[in-house]
């Protein structure tokens, strides 16, 4: 297990519905990340297709692993890179069932996926209309550390990142398609999720304009202390690389020992109250 890992945050704009165009761009960014000595590159939520696909989701979604994942595997292998990316997933068992999914691919091939649990269906968001929420939040034990993934609105729910941390996650990855009017929420919550769990969090947001929505970028890596150690530009395509030193987690964990002070009995009460809201 390495002590240090270089993570590239690739906040790209996407062409809605055009997977070939988007994969071409993804490949260019992977090459750029390799030149900057990154071993992991993270792309935004639904980066394969763009976020606002609406009814096109039914023709754009694919099984995972499937054709696009195989193309990404080829890129990951060629460039010796780990890739995290958001895409539309079609259930193999029931083709009308779709998920908003993140995939993790290593230089050796597909590792696993995370299906978004919390689907925003308010304001301009209509995800429950199209997607089924996921039920698993796996931790991936990889050669570059223990990685957990959440997607965008998941970050509003502290229990999911807490669970990832309790399962041993060192680096939580949050991929996102957040419109600019919500920037303030994400800037606060991404920092809070990293600090309250004393772990690293890499947040990668979409940029560009889709359907009148402007995505604000501002991707960042947050240290276990809550300090932002790398940040991409606001509102425009950009890539930054941050070096993560996992040993910082132990050092910070002594200074702000939230995990030591956890009170598990509160979780039972939390469940009971949440069921009777």
């Amino acid at each position: 297990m390495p002590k240090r890992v270089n993570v590239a945050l690739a906040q790209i704009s996407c062409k809605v519905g055009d997977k070939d165009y988007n994969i071409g761009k993804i490949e260019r960014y992977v090459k750029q990340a390799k030149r900057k000595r990154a071993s992991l590159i993270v792309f935004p939520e639904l980066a394969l297709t763009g976020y606002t696909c609406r009814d096109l989701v039914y023709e754009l979604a694919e099984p995972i692993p499937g054709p696009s994942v195989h193309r990404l595997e080829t890129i990951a292998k060629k460039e010796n890179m780990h890739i995290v990316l958001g895409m539309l997933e079609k259930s193999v068992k029931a083709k009308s069932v779709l998920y908003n999914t993140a995939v993790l691919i290593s230089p050796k091939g597909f590792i696993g996926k995370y299906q978004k649990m919390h689907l925003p269906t308010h304001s301009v968001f209509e995800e429950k209309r199209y997607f089924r929420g996921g039920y698993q939040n796996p931790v991936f034990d990889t050669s570059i550390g223990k990685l957990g993934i959440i997607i965008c609105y998941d970050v509003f729910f502290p229990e999911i990142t807490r669970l990832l941390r309790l399962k041993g996650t060192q680096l939580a990855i949050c991929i996102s398609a957040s419109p600019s009017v919500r920037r303030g929420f994400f800037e606060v919550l991404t920092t809070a999720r990293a600090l309250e769990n004393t772990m690293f969090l890499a947040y990668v947001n979409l940029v560009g304009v889709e359907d009148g929505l402007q995505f604000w970028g501002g991707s960042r890596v947050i240290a276990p202390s809550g300090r932002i150690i790398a940040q991409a530009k606001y509102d425009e395509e950009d890539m930054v690389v941050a070096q993560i030193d996992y040993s910082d987690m132990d050092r910070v964990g002594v200074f702000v020992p939230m995990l030591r002070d956890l009170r598990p009995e509160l979780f039972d009460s939390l469940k009971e109250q949440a069921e009777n809201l």
Partner: protein
Amino acid sequence: MKLSPNALKLDWPLVATRIKRFIKDYVDKTGMNGIVLGVSGGIDSSTTAALTSLAIGGKKVLALSMPEEETYNVTDIKHTKMLAEKFGFQMETVDVSPILRAYYDSIPVYDANEKRSKGNLKARTRMICLYYYANRLGRIVCGSSDKSETMVGYFTKWGDVAADISPLMDLYKTQVRQLAAYLEIPKEIIAKPSTPALWPDHFAEEELGIKYEKLDLILLGLENFLTSEEIARQLKMPLNLVLDVKTRWLANEHKRRMPLATKLGYRTAGKDFRLPYTP
């Protein structure tokens, strides 16, 4: 939520940046040659003309002034020319009076004394001219509608609201005034009373029966799901006034949507045919 003018304040440099980005992105993605917009010399069209010019360059923005004989106003035209010089957009004048006279002479039920239908005819005639120019020049039409008039339906259906993009549609009139001040639109344009100019001495606040300062706060309350009673209480105004605005807002939904169709098929335009913009 406290309904006060402060609640309508935004970060104007950021708003201007976002609007400019939105305009440029749309023009770039459509691959069109530029923008055509109608200009009246009023605050909405002046602000839109300024923003489009800043977004894509004035050489790609054609502002059409479309006066007609009944409402011809030298000051408005002077103001637009002044703005064209400041922001560098192109300007052309189409006198729509002969077109309107042809309509008046051709429509059997035409009634010169019925102001609303005649006024709407003027707005729709201007729309036809705008789209003619847009088609001929390979450009898009940019609208100037603001959120106040959009919410209360204070516009002509398929007339002045008809456009490919409407960059100001999420800003209330009093917010447009603040944005205009930030953009250094000349004060005389910002200060003059708003008018749709569909007939002589036609003033918006007079016809609406309420000042924009009050209207915008009522609409902001409705936007934020406040009850009519709460809005009236906070703004210290009669409940009936709030209810009148709310009624106008609800009654004019037909102007803001695709034409209503009854559902017969699997997916229906305007209802559950939900496709993305992929220009």
